[in-house]
């Protein structure tokens, strides 16, 4: 990992020095241990603040939208697929972007880290696939692979799909199955059980919109939640409004979501919102054979069609 950080710093500083890019979007250490924050390095000196470890949960493609300058961007597998989505949706042009591709071995889950620590984390160190957290009470070490985020366990593309300057050699893909146990478990329930399951799941939502702010797919000038004439969804914490919000938010990501997990990583209430986007991702693959962000020249699933799309449900 130290090696990754050094490579990223060197590549970024070279890019900035040569004037090939005006800014490098990467991560720097956050104010709290265990959380890295997005950082825009604008000078070669800034590049020394860039870091890489297993706490880079946010999706940096989010910061590409509407940029007019030349941008270098640190991208793991999922981020690179979102960069592709941005290029397809003309949020940024391919010529503007230089991708510093980072082969990713997964990010740690913030909740699992907290459970491991059992208190406020004072320092966090990572070496040789082990993570050590220090709290006021003492020190605890665990295997990084036991702390991964759910989406990282299921990840099928750990290596960036667009990669102008690789920061390291590719890592082997670990997961080979598309099966999503969490979603299949819900599908096996009865309709009433499913309704109750999601009522319970979303009951903690405070409508802070962190999930949509962390999501690189959300860039409409006016979000449907802010529309008032007509008002499609109420603003309070009425369960039906909350359900409507989450349903529509997930639907807006249909065929575009790369399962990067930024939404869940950002959620202060630990709501598993990926259970909704994951279902749509699954449907897109089963119905249209579509996987988001794999190339930069094919329109996403809902922005294209074939004449023989499935329609057995239409009378």
């Amino acid at each position, binding site marked *: 990992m130290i090696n990754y950080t050094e490579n990223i710093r060197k590549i970024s500083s070279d890019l900035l020095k040569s004037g090939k890019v005006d800014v490098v979007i990467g991560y720097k250490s956050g104010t709290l241990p265990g959380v890295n924050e997005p950082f825009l390095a604008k000078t070669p000196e800034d590049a020394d603040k860039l870091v890489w470890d297993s706490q880079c949960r946010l999706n940096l493609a989010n910061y590409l939208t509407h940029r007019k300058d030349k941008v270098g961007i640190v991208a793991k597998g999922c981020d690179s697929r979102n960069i592709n989505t941005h290029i397809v949706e003309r949020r940024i042009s391919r010529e503007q972007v230089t991708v510093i591709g980072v082969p990713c071995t997964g990010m740690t889950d913030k909740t699992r880290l907290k459970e491991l620590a059992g208190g406020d984390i004072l320092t966090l160190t990572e070496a040789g696939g082990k993570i050590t957290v220090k709290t006021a009470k003492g020190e605890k070490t665990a295997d990084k692979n036991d702390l991964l985020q759910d989406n990282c366990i299921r990840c099928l593309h750990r290596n960036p799909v667009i990669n102008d300057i690789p920061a390291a050699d590719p890592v082997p893909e670990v997961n080979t199955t598309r099966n999503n146990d969490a979603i299949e478990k819900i599908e096996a329930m009865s309709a009433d059980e499913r309704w109750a399951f999601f009522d319970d799941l979303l009951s903690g939502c405070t409508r802070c919109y962190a999930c949509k702010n962390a999501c690189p797919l959300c860039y409409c000038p006016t979000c449907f939640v802010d529309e008032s004439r007509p008002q499609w969804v109420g603003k309070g914490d009425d369960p039906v409004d909350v359900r409507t919000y989450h349903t529509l938010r997930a639907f807006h990501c249909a065929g575009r979501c790369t399962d990067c997990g930024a939404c869940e990583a950002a959620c202060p209430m630990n709501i598993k919102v990926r259970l*909704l986007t994951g279902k749509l991702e699954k449907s897109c693959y089963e119905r249209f054979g579509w996987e988001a962000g794999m190339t930069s020249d094919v329109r996403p699933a809902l922005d294209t069609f074939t004449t023989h799309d499935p*329609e057995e449900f239409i*009378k």
Partner: protein
Amino acid sequence: MTDFEPKIITFLCNWCSYGAADLAGVSRFQYPPNMRVVRVPCSGRISPKMILAALRKGADAVWVSGCHPGDCHYIEGNYYARRKFTLLKELLEYQGIEPGRLHFSWISSAEGVKFAQVANDVIAEVKKLGPAKHFIKKTPGEIAA
């Protein structure tokens, strides 16, 4: 439950299904008056927002009908609609909405008979399901009561 008369919000595309509804009326084909028709320019105009809004305000079911694939007035609007509906139907059913609450059909403006027949089918199916249980937003008064 036998005297339950469902309210079904029906989105009809201006060019085909709305014409079919008109033809069914002119031809005096009978179907029960459980539908509230909303005329839209194209089935591709339908956003999930509209379908959810209908359910939220107490509709017992939503039925969307447009031109047959290939016959869209705007050439390809209903192809996009078809993909949208596929995903929306799966997402809502996954969340616990009964399959009979959402209906989709292709009816051309010459198919008055089909219109009346599908209308009868939809209404019969929703009657069997009973009043909508989910996704209805209660007003503050109703919550207090």
